[in-house]
């Protein structure tokens, strides 16, 4: 009897991850890391829009942004074993997206609006500002989206991460690979510029 037991025994796989203090999403990350496609599919559902949003705000080309979003998520799946801290999945994912966007911009062959920061902001300025009557018809959200497009890539980047994704300064510093102080001043000046654009170009009356 003893003999049979020892021959058949199968090593147990630790499945009780919740007990280790991991949240629902982190459990998905752990499962996906071991190759579980269903778990990864759920992560894709959670993050595809956020990543698309972040990428599109900087590339301003839907098709390219969709392709980049796909590539970022696929890359994430095959590199999950490199993610050391499960809890940092979100900022890790965004940093992959950020690197990807930077790569594309470096290659510069793609016709992107914001290849060159200064020049591009000026160019879009002209094209993005609509005649007054059109502006009046625009919904507030649409207006803010348009105003966001007039910011420099770095400014868009920090506002997307800070005010829309709700990330901390240290997470943003990690993703964008700049010092904390730079993150701090970028956020300040980005908001300041966005306010100016809203007031001057879109006649927005806020509670300033």
């Amino acid at each position, binding site marked *: 009897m003893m003999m049979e037991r*020892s021959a058949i025994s199968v090593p147990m796989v630790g499945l009780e991850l919740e007990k280790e203090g991991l949240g629902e999403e982190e459990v998905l990350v752990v499962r996906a890391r071991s190759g579980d496609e269903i778990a990864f599919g759920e992560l894709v559902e959670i993050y595809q829009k956020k990543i698309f949003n972040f990428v599109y705000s900087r590339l301003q080309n839907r098709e390219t942004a969709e392709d980049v979003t796909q590539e970022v998520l696929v890359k994430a799946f095959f590199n999950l074993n490199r993610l050391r801290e499960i809890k940092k999945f979100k900022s890790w994912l965004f940093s992959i997206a950020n690197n990807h966007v930077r790569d594309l911009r470096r290659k510069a062959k793609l016709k992107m609006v914001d290849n060159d920061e200064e020049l591009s902001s000026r160019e879009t300025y002209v094209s993005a500002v609509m005649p007054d009557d059109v502006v009046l018809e625009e919904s507030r959200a649409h207006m803010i989206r348009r105003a966001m497009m007039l910011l420099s890539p770095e400014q868009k980047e920090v506002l997307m991460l800070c005010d829309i994704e709700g990330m901390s*300064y240290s997470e943003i510093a990690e993703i964008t690979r700049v010092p904390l102080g730079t993150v701090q001043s970028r956020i300040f000046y980005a908001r300041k510029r966005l306010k100016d654009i809203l007031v001057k170009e879109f006649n927005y009356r806020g509670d300033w």
Partner: protein
Amino acid sequence: MKCEKIQTLLGAYVDGEIRTSGTVTLIEAHLESCTSCREVLNSQKEIKKILADTQILYETFLSPSILKARVMGEVRARKSKKQRIVSRPAFVIVGLVALLAIGITSVGFFANLQLEKKRTQAFLKALPERAEEMDNPLMPQGDYLIPTSSGNGDSTFLDFVQRHHQMTRELLILESDWAKTLENLQEFVANSENDSKAPLFKELPEKSKDKTKEETNKDKRR
């Protein structure tokens, strides 16, 4: 502190990112008395609020489910591509040779195993499960059951039985390992045969492969 210096800190102040309480006190004291800095603070707050409230979600051309399907499809495609890298013809041949060798060996091996199993089971039936009881004077002792021809040098009956137990245990472990290896190899060979038949898996040169990918993506969009 001058207004300029204070103002650059106001973004971080709104976000609760100023960690030193001294600085916070300083900012708050300044804000009490400075209207223009208060205005800057308000506009920082307002922008943060607008961005949080407004759905700054850009619409994709693709619906979320299609985008997800594309991602998962690509994951699966690359997974099988990774597996295919191993299944080149040379590997298939090596696999077949190994399979044959293992097949021949295992026939003899399994026969041997069955024989050993039977012998040990006979001993097990005659024995109690716990080893302490082996020393019971009522149990067969010494060379009582040991065939003199065995020539294995077992000095006691207990040694003899334990050695057989050990042997069978090892054989059973080996058997399950080998069975697994055999199964894997069969699967491996079956897969690589399927692969070479399917035209889908044809290797394309690097550049044109990318093109095809883009084209298929575009097709899907339409």
